[in-house]
Each structure stands twice: as structure tokens, then as C-alpha cells.
């Protein structure tokens, strides 16, 4: 993990002190709410329905146990004992008081955490692969490049007042766990024929009210030219992005209006004017950053663990957990362990202070001090010995963290929705809980297989409903909550935007409709077909029939 140096640390202390002064001036009436609002947003502090909400950056979803314990402490001392992990690998606290916010920022700064650029029209936290440094699929460690972008983009003077917010995702594996193609910029690390590394650059993806899978504007950007090229993209956007209309201000609208080819041409033109020696990262600095992600000191172990095999044979619950939550590791004798935050009746993405502490302890004792957050609102222990898995499983089970449902139908993404969010039109959490209840039977859920349900409480799509296999969008019909279903979206490497199934349904019909959709899928699927594959083969009609024919 990247270690903050003295400059980073002093910077955070200064920043926290600055915000303390701003809060004091606001409370004393020396600045107005209109003046204060952008200042608090630059520090991740929103005013929601019941209280302030503080969004804390988790750079590329990576945390150490000290940080996780500090988050638990904040949950306990300043919130109601829990935190909420978001679809951009960050964590939010829902019950924050303005008067406490400066103290909280101080406490975060002590453990190298902050809330800078988690809001506002700037470059936000970079999303990256939660399996970084652990999966055999990757061709380089994407955290290195995420950290490069973090340092470059933090308080970047030219890009602190963009037309709208700006989100970057990086993956170095063929399997995309970052939703890169629906980010403002998606960077897919590729290996060239000569063995050199370069990024496929995707620009102008996004969700919200105008969803797009982003087009590729550069097939192979040599990695050492990353920052100058990003600068060129941002500069074209900063110059031509629609500042006149908030709904048209994201880069995706500009790219769609110009066409990918013309946008790419303008970027190339801008890029050619940039002095590479000034803009690109010096090799020595890259080496310094890379060194902080030095190889994890794995032990040399046999690929097969007797303790692990024995536990799997004797304990069906453990075997199920392994089937669904444990993934292959690049190092023999190790595994990647997903911790589901989607237990029955749990709010998707919520973790209590006690659960955070359990996760921190496990990361410390069994996982090289490494804990990751996924964009699907779960946690990951990226490096666990197979020998230790039964012990880790038991500890997770005791903490209510061993739900074996990763990527299954009950592993649902949901935004906070109208229960918390000032922008929402409808609730998302209770719908997620209804659907999860409908599929509480794990044998049935496993039989259904990979099925990604994602729920947003409004068109801003924080719940990623556009890229769900089954998407659910809360809408407001004359004050009643209704839900529009869409099918066939994907946020992975096979990215696509879902298609609306039909008229919106009342809240109490959503789980039943999902059941009907699953029934239709099971009746026509062929061997090995996921829900998404079946949908892509047979189209919308059989599913429409299943839900609306019976609804009459």
C-alpha cells in the first residue's frame, strides 16, 4: 500500500484545519450557505434527509487494518454504529453533525484518510480492481497507476472546476471488476505484441439519465504517456463541456455530440501541444510509487491444502462459501476471499463497527494487512492462505459476514435511496431486501447462478441499474413509489445498457416480477448460460410476457 510521506501528512492536517476554519465561519454567519456549500462538498460533506453525510475516499478500494479500525471508531463515536460502502469503493457515514466534521477529518488524517474530492466537479477517486495484486489475470498492478492518478489529480488547479464530476476506472485484467466502460474514462491495461504495456482508453461512458457504454478513443496509449494524455482529454472536456446545462455537462454528452472520432482527433491535437517532459511522470517517480506496492511476501506453499480440502469435505456450509465467495489466487496455496455485505435483511453495503473490526483483525492476522472494497459494495481479503480459510470462515460466520452469495441473485447493489438521500424519488433498500428474501434459499440462488441485480432510487443511477442484468429504477408516480425494470445491462467487460422491460411496477410487485423473470430464464436457458446470456439470445419478449401477461 502507498505510504503517505511527510508532505502528504502535512497537507492533510492543513486541509483539515482549513475546513475547521470554514465551519467556524459558517456557524458564526461570516459566510453564507451558498458560499459554504461548495467548500463542504469539496470535503465530501453533503446535507441529506436526516443529517449530514460524509463520504470518505478509499483510494482504489484499498484499506489497511488501522484505517478500518478508525472507520469503526468514527461509526461508533459520530454515527449510529455503522458505515455504508458505495458503488465507487468509498465509505459513507449517514448521521454526521456539521459541528463534528472537522474532528472527524482530523481523525481520518491521522490514518492517511480523507474526504477530498469525493464530491464536486473535480476528478473523483479512481476505481480499480479489488483483486489487484492477487489475481493471476492481471498484467500489471493497477493500483500503481491508480496512485499515479490520485497524486496527479488531487487539487489539480486546472481540473478542480470542471463542467461536472469526473470519474476514472482502471483495470489490468481481461475480466473487468471496475465498470470501466461506464466511467468518464476507462483505462484497460493491455500488453502489446512487443511485450510493452499500454492503455486502451475509453472515454465518455456513464450512467445517469443518459447512459452510454464509452467508445475507445485510443487503442494503445504507452503507459509512460498516461498523464499527458489524460491532461489532453480533460483539457478538451474543460474547454467544450456544456457548463450551461447540468444535465448535459458530463463528458459523455460531449463525446456523443462530437462523435468519438472527432473527440479523439481533438484530444490528439491537444496532446501534441503538451510538453511531455513537463506533463508525464518521470520514471524515477513512477519507480518510487511502484515500490510502495512491492510484492507481497507470500510463502512458498503447495497448491493443495489438506486442511482446506478436509474442511470442504466435512462442512457443507464451508464448501458453499468456497464455491461462491472464494476465488483463485495467483500464488499457489492462497485464495482471494470475498466478504458479502448482503446478508438477509442487511442493508446492502452496510457494515457495523464490530464487523469492520472483525474484517480488520482478519486482514491483520491472515491477510497481509490488506482489505479491499468492491464496487458491488462488498469487501475482499485479497491474500488468504488456503490453510487459514476454515478459521477465517468461522470468524466471518460469527460476525454475520459469511453470506455465500457473491454474484448471485441476492448480492444486490442498492443506493441509499429515499431512506437517506435528498435526491432520491423512491426507496432502494427495502426493494433489495424484498428480492433477497424471495431468494433466501441458497440452493435455489446457486441454481439460478450469476445474476446481478442493481437498484437506484433515482435516475442519477448510483445503484448502477443501467448495467444490471436486472436493473430496478425507482420512480415517483404522483407521490407513490414505482419501479421500472430493465434487462440485459452489464458493467463488466461485456458492457451494455439494459432495456426497459415495460411499465413501472408498484413496490410490492417487484420481488414477484424478479421471480417471474427468473422463472422465464430457467425455462429456456441452455447449459452454462447465465441470465444475461439467455437474455441476449432470446431477447426481451419472453421476459415481458412472464411479468406482464400474468399481471393482468
Amino acid at each position: 500500500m502507498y505510504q503517505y510521506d511527510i508532505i502528504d501528512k502535512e497537507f492533510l492536517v492543513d486541509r483539515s484545519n482549513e475546513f475547521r476554519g470554514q465551519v467556524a465561519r459558517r456557524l458564526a454567519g461570516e459566510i453564507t450557505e451558498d458560499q459554504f456549500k461548495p467548500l463542504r462538498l469539496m470535503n465530501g460533506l453533503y446535507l441529506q434527509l436526516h443529517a449530514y453525510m460524509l463520504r470518505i475516499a478509499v483510494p482504489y478500494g484499498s484499506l489497511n487494518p488501522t484505517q478500518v479500525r478508525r472507520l469503526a471508531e468514527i461509526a461508533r463515536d459520530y454515527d449510529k454504529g455503522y458505515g455504508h460502502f458505495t458503488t465507487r469503493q468509498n465509505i459513507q457515514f449517514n448521521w454526521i453533525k456539521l459541528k463534528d466534521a472537522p474532528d472527524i477529518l482530523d481523525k481520518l488524517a491521522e490514518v492517511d484518510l480523507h474526504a477530498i474530492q469525493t464530491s464536486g466537479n473535480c476528478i473523483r477517486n479512481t476505481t480499480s480492481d479489488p483483486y489487484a495484486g492477487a489475481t493471476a489475470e492481471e498484467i500489471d498492478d493497477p493500483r500503481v497507476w491508480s496512485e499515479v492518478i490520485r497524486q496527479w489529480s488531487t487539487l489539480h488547479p486546472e481540473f478542480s472546476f470542471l463542467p461536472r464530476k469526473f470519474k476514472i476506472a482502471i483495470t489490468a485484467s481481461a475480466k473487468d471488476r471496475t465498470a470501466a466502460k461506464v466511467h468518464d474514462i476507462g483505462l484497460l491495461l493491455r500488453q502489446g505484441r512487443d511485450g510493452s504495456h499500454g492503455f486502451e482508453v475509453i472515454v465518455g461512458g456513464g450512467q445517469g439519465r443518459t447512459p452510454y457504454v464509452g467508445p475507445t478513443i485510443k487503442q494503445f496509449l504507452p503507459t509512460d504517456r498516461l498523464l499527458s494524455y489524460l491532461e489532453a482529454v480533460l483539457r478538451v472536456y474543460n474547454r467544450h463541456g456544456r457548463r450551461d446545462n447540468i444535465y448535459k455537462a458530463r463528458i459523455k454528452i460531449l463525446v456523443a455530440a462530437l462523435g468519438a472520432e472527432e473527440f479523439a482527433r481533438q484530444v490528439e491535437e491537444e496532446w501534441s501541444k503538451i510538453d511531455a517532459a513537463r506533463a508525464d511522470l518521470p520514471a524515477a517517480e513512477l519507480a518510487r510509487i511502484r515500490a510502495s506496492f512491492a510484492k507481497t511476501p507470500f510463502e512458498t506453499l503447495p497448491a493443495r491444502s489438506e486442511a482446506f480440502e478436509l474442511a470442504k469435505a466435512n462442512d457443507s456450509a464451508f464448501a458453499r462459501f468456497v464455491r461462491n465467495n472464494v476465488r483463485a489466487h495467483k500464488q499457489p496455496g492462497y485464495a482471494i476471499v470475498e466478504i458479502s455485505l448482503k446478508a438477509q435483511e442487511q442493508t446492502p453495503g452496510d457494515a457495523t463497527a464490530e464487523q469492520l473490526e472483525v474484517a480488520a483483525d482478519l486482514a491483520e492476522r491472515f491477510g497481509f494487512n490488506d482489505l479491499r472494497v468492491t464496487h458491488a459494495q462488498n469487501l475482499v481479503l485479497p491474500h488468504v492462505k488456503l490453510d487459514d480459510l476454515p478459521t477465517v470462515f468461522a470468524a466471518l460466520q460469527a460476525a454475520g459476514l459469511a453470506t455465500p452469495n457473491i454474484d448471485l441473485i441476492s448480492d444486490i447493489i442498492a443506493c441509499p435511496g429515499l431512506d437517506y438521500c435528498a435526491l432520491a424519488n423512491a426507496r432502494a433498500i427495502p426493494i433489495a431486501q424484498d428480492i433477497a428474501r424471495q431468494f433466501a434459499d441458497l440452493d435455489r440462488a446457486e441454481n439460478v447462478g450469476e445474476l446481478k441485480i442493481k437498484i437506484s432510487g433515482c435516475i442519477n443511477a448510483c445503484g448502477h441499474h443501467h448495467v444490471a442484468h436486472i436493473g430496478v429504477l425507482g420512480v415517483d408516480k404522483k407521490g407513490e413509489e414505482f419501479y421500472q425494470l430493465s434487462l440485459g445491462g452489464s458493467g463488466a467487460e461485456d458492457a451494455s445498457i439494459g432495456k426497459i422491460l415495460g411499465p413501472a411496477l408498484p413496490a410490492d410487485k417487484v420481488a414477484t416480477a424478479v421471480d417471474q423473470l427468473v422463472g422465464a430464464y430457467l425455462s429456456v436457458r441452455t447449459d452454462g448460460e447465465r441470465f444475461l446470456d439467455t437474455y441476449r439470445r432470446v431477447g426481451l419478449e419472453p421476459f415481458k410476457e412472464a411479468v406482464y401477461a400474468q399481471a393482468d
Partner: protein
Amino acid sequence: MKAITANRLIDGDVVFWKSGQWVERFGDAQLFDENEASDVEAAVATGKGQPTVVVDVYPIDLIESEGRWAPVSYRERIRALGPTNELTHGKQAEGGDVVEALRHASGAARSTGRVDLIRRK
């Protein structure tokens, strides 16, 4: 019937207008009937003149529920109660008749219940 709501600046808590004061419980809110429109306007103006006390002051529409008054809109009922996924969080934690009436209220709500939602430029 109308009430007036805001969020308290210092902690963000939902508050309601009561005769020149801001109170935390919806059950304690001052209710204005249809012929008190100018009183509502005056109270909102007073609230907006207290920027170090409250933010986002606005009137909300009410309907009758179980013999009591409740906000028309779902959003405002959630503000007055707390989140529906955590029934011990927020104002609903203390329970009582008013909370029950709010929980059971339903009806033809406007989208947000904010009376002054549309801002004309």
C-alpha cells in the same frame, strides 16, 4: 393544512416551526390551515432570515391520517420519522401515536410534498 420544515445547520437534524421556535418532533409542529397562507409566508421568511440556525426552509402539505395530520409526501414522512430500513434510527425511535400515524399515512402525494419546489428563474 401545512407545516414548515428545515434542517438545523449545526447537525442537519430535521426541525419544524413552532411559534417562532424550531422543534425536533413533527408532533410538536405548528399547523397552519388554508386561510393562514400569509402566516406561513411570514414564518418561512423568518426562518430564511436565520441562516446560522437552519438551512433549506420550506412549507409542506399535510393530510389527515388516523385522526392526526401527516405530511402528504413519502419523502417528508421519512424525514419526520427516519429511514424505513432502520426503525430504531431517527425520530421514530421514540415511538408513540404521532409516529404510528405517520407510519400509516398514505395517499395521493405530490412528488416531494415541497410546496415551493419549482423554482422559476
